[in-house]
């Protein structure tokens, strides 16, 4: 029924830090998430982009040091495609994603609370319909638990380096734009 108390405590601690960060990062807000989809507010992309780059460095170091293993979801193309379309529509209409819905409940948002109840209902529908969904999930083949480095026969470090330089270039252009603005303002 329950995992060990240590794992429960670890999960709780990790979740508290996660929820704290999402709330301080303002990403548990309808207006910020929908604002991203309207290209008005870039908070979501900045936050996720930085998380992916920083996370990729450390996780690949941990895996190289044999202190953790990769957990790759299979590329079941039918399930990924149909799932991503349902997910994108649902997230845009609700204005929260699953993690930020729960964080938005913590912030007091009533629409997110009803959204979370709906999420549970959606999971029940998925479980109940699971046998009927197999043709959709497996319909377009299974690419397996494959990574981009495996697919292209390249080193994962090349990809990590690519992600880091993408962020570095972005930060650099941003600083230069700032300098130009300051220059034009006579500073």
């Amino acid at each position, binding site marked *: 029924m329950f995992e060990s108390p240590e794992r429960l405590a670890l999960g709780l601690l990790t979740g508290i830090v996660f929820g704290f960060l999402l709330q301080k990062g303002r990403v548990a807000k309808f207006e910020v998430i929908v604002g991203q989809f309207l290209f008005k507010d870039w908070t979501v992309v900045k936050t996720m982009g930085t998380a992916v780059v920083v996370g990729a460095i450390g996780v690949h170091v*941990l895996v190289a040091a044999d202190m953790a293993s990769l957990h790759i979801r299979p590329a079941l193309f039918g399930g990924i495609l149909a799932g991503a*379309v349902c997910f994108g529509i649902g997230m845009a209409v609700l204005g929260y994603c699953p993690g930020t819905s729960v964080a938005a409940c913590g912030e007091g948002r009533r629409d997110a609370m009803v959204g979370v109840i709906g999420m549970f209902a959606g999971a029940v529908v998925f479980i109940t319909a699971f046998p009927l969904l197999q043709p959709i999930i497996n319909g377009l083949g299974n690419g397996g638990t494959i990574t981009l480095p495996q697919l292209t026969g390249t080193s994962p470090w090349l990809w990590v380096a690519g992600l880091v330089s993408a962020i570095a270039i972005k930060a650099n252009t941003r600083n230069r734009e700032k300098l130009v603005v300051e220059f034009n303002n006579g500073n």
Partner: protein
Amino acid sequence: MANPLFQKSWSPYGVGAGIGMLSWFAFASADHPLGVTTAFENSAAQSARAVMPTIEHSNEYFAKKAAEGKPLKIGWEWMLVVGLFVGAFVSSKLSGDRESSIVPPLWRWRFGPSAFPRLVVAFLSGGLMMFGARLAQGCTSGHGISGTLQLAVSSWIFIIIAFTVGTITTFLLYGKEGARHV
């Protein structure tokens, strides 16, 4: 300098770096990526089995999970979701950044101030989103952050399609005008 714990917002780059490092912690301490929706699927399966015990034999889901060595338990993932709520609650209490309104301003501008339609749609769209996440085996956390940082092919495909569809849906709902009301 003001205590950052009482501030309403932190830099997105700082928060992103924090979430990235939290991923290291999750991999190192629990050998588990950050993810939210598996816990919902697990709870739904346990509830379905409690309400209708025959489902364990009639529905291949349960045999499949048992074969994968993933017994239905309340575990790390479940507590992560509880923690998410607690962490956001504490953060918003410390800074006073609480929001108890039902209808967000942009929704009000487009669909009116009535709470009932917003809540019905929130229920349905939350359900559709979760259904999609379980079809694809991941969400913004499981695929969008944890999967992409592991350079998983499935996750990059998922997040690109999901965010493209999300953008199209949002423009269909609110149009270009919408940006002026966020």
